[in-house]
């Protein structure tokens, strides 16, 4: 267990360093392809995106809603993952012991 955690920590450190290096050497802005592609072609055709119905793209609000969405999606996924892959195994083990 201890070895696994150390390996995981080392892998995370290597990933963080590589990512940091990648950001340093690349002068790109890492824009989404909608901005780099979709909006570019739309603007050339004279069409601009309009404000969404609920505009959460304001300051850090968008980070907050993405974080909430990620956490909610993670919990829902985890709940059903447990239902599919663990509760069944637990049930089988219980049956086997009985």
């Amino acid at each position, binding site marked *: 267990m201890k070895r696994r955690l150390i390996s*995981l920590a080392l892998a995370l450190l290597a990933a963080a360093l590589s990512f940091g290096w*990648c950001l340093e050497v*690349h*002068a*790109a*802005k*890492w*824009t*989404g*392809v*909608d*901005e*780099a*592609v*979709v*909006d*570019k*072609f*739309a603007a*050339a*055709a004279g*069409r*601009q*995106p*309009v*404000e*969404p*119905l*609920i*505009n*959460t*793209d304001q300051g850090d609000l*968008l*980070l907050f*809603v*993405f*974080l909430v*969405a*990620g*956490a909610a*999606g*993670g*919990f*829902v*996924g*985890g*709940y*059903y*993952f*447990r*239902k*599919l*892959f*663990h509760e*069944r195994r*637990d049930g089988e083990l219980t049956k086997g012991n009985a």
Partner: protein
Amino acid sequence: MTSPFKLRLLLLIPALVLASQTPAHAMHISEGILPAGWAGLWFLVALPFVVWGLRDLRRRSSTESPHFKALVGLVGAAVFIISCMPIPVPFAGTCSHPCGTGLAAILVGPAVTVVITSIALILQALFLAHGGLTTLGADIVSMGVAGAFIGYGFFRLLLRLGAPATVAAFVAGLASDWATYAVTSMELSLGLHPAGSWFSLFTPILVAFMPTQIPLGVLEGVLSGGAYQFVTRRRPDLFRAAKQKVLMEVPE
């Protein structure tokens, strides 16, 4: 709850949260980009697939394994997260996201995947400033319909040709990603092209997507192959009937 599961859950949640922290903008066509006529037309194209998916979901919920609903829930959460997860592509210097619809289609079927994708896209358009409500039909057609049916089509074809299921799942993921962006390019070029042929705008848009989507498609293929293998090894009972339907026999 076993302790390794607790550990995995503890690692999974922050990973998902960190992965989804940065807003992603990619295949989703933003609000107002498409002219009203085209936006309406894509709604009409998407509608029969959504209705088919809802009927399929209702029928299979009552006839298939009781775990089918849980599988749909898991796949739904995965599609929602995957399709708003920005991935930086160092070759291109841009970010984009995989779609997850190829994997979803081979796990729960393409029609149900359209429903799952529609729900994910509605939530993203409403709360994440990601896509738009007027362009929802176009986004459902590119990501839900094209991604799911083309990925599933390749999966079935390769299984029938005798390819290993993991390879077929890899190709399904790859094809669904590329198909999504090809259809997005088509939707944009049809809606935005100046007087003359829409194809003259289709090619430049498709080419502009390529540097980001070619590597991401491969990544999506790897994700689909790995996830399919993981799920079918642990719950082969959920897929036996579906495989029999495709092949009329259970493959090794």
